[in-house]
């Protein structure tokens, strides 16, 4: 009896899902995702785009480039900062000259990361440390108690 019930339930679920998958199999869909990069357009003073040019990306307080990207025909390039601070972007122009963009990235501008996720504040660290000490003290007192 129980086995028959299980079989009925399987068929019921299959009937429920199959038409829905038919409906959506040839449709189009879109999904809004959080942007994973910051996009910049580089141009000369004249407004002419700095096209097909190398851009060196320097993280905050780093002397060496983390990555190198290239501008497209419209002078557009993108990069993905992974921490807040001043990011330096060096765009090489014609004749060996170049420009440097110093971009301040704060927590809100960090792409692809909900604010505060995965980060522990200073206050949180203190509270966590206090809890550990408290726990160890309690454990030590428990085992060192004199038995009545």
């Amino acid at each position: 009896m129980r086995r028959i019930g299980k079989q009925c339930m399987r068929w019921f679920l299959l009937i429920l899902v199959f038409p829905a998958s038919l409906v959506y199999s040839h449709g189009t869909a879109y999904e809004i995702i959080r942007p994973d990069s910051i996009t910049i357009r580089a141009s000369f003073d004249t407004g002419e785009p700095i096209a097909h040019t190398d851009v060196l990306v320097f993280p905050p307080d780093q002397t060496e480039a983390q990555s190198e990207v290239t501008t497209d025909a419209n002078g557009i390039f993108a990069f993905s900062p992974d921490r807040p601070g001043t990011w330096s972007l060096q765009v090489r122009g014609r004749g060996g000259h170049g420009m440097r963009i110093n971009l301040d990235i704060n927590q809100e501008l960090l792409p692809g990361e909900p604010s505060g996720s995965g980060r522990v504040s200073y206050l949180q660290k203190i509270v966590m440390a206090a809890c550990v000490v408290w726990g160890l003290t309690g454990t030590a007192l428990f085992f060192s108690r004199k038995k009545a």
Partner: protein
Amino acid sequence: MSFTRIRFLCIVPVAAFIFLYGCSSEKNSALVFRANGEDFVRQGFIDKQGWAIAFDTVLVHLSDIAAYNKKEGLRAELQGNFAVDLAAGDDNAIPVKVGTVDNVAAGNYQSLKFKVTKATAGEYRGSSIVMTGKAIKDSLSIPFIIKINETMTFTCTEGYVGDEIKGIVKEDSVADVEMTFHFDHIFGDNDAPMDNHINSSSVGFDFFYQYRDGGKVAVSQSELKQDDEYETFVRALWSLGHCGEGHCEVSEQSTELHD
């Protein structure tokens, strides 16, 4: 345990903490200021008119040199006047050390300001830039000495442009900043297209060659004032100052030009 002993046990770690904290807050970092004429000056080059230029000396007189970061409240000033030979050393010499500022706070000294001023003493008194060397083209070999008395201030706010970031000082370490001078802005560059700004905005050695006397060129800026290309020449001087490959703003120029 006696009260004295407890007090001793408390005092020792506190004193140690204060001592270590005091040591760590001491500024042992330094910022080195360098000047660079790049390979054009050290190795020579072919100018836009086909002259092979080889420099013996390129003296630049500098003063009021400072690296700073307004946002972070940082400033390091190199006190004094300096006569720097950008052609010093061999073909692959590192940029010339102008001076060091010790005990600077850690941080990003991205911005740079410096003045090109006249020498107040010595052989080239009254000149701000002096170039000596030889220009060769076909069968001609012309020694030259070109004295410039233009004074100007260069401000490079955004910072060094190159393969690395300069001016980031970390605790107990030494970093450098660089004042870069692009002399191809005066002579042009045979390797660049003739319609490139480096050639369309420069005068080339021909500009000086026309003032030759007795098989050599010995000319000063004041003698060039009547030349049709004088304005182009002065504007080229105003574009000499760089921070790596990044342009610097020029101000306080001694020559007045009408736009």
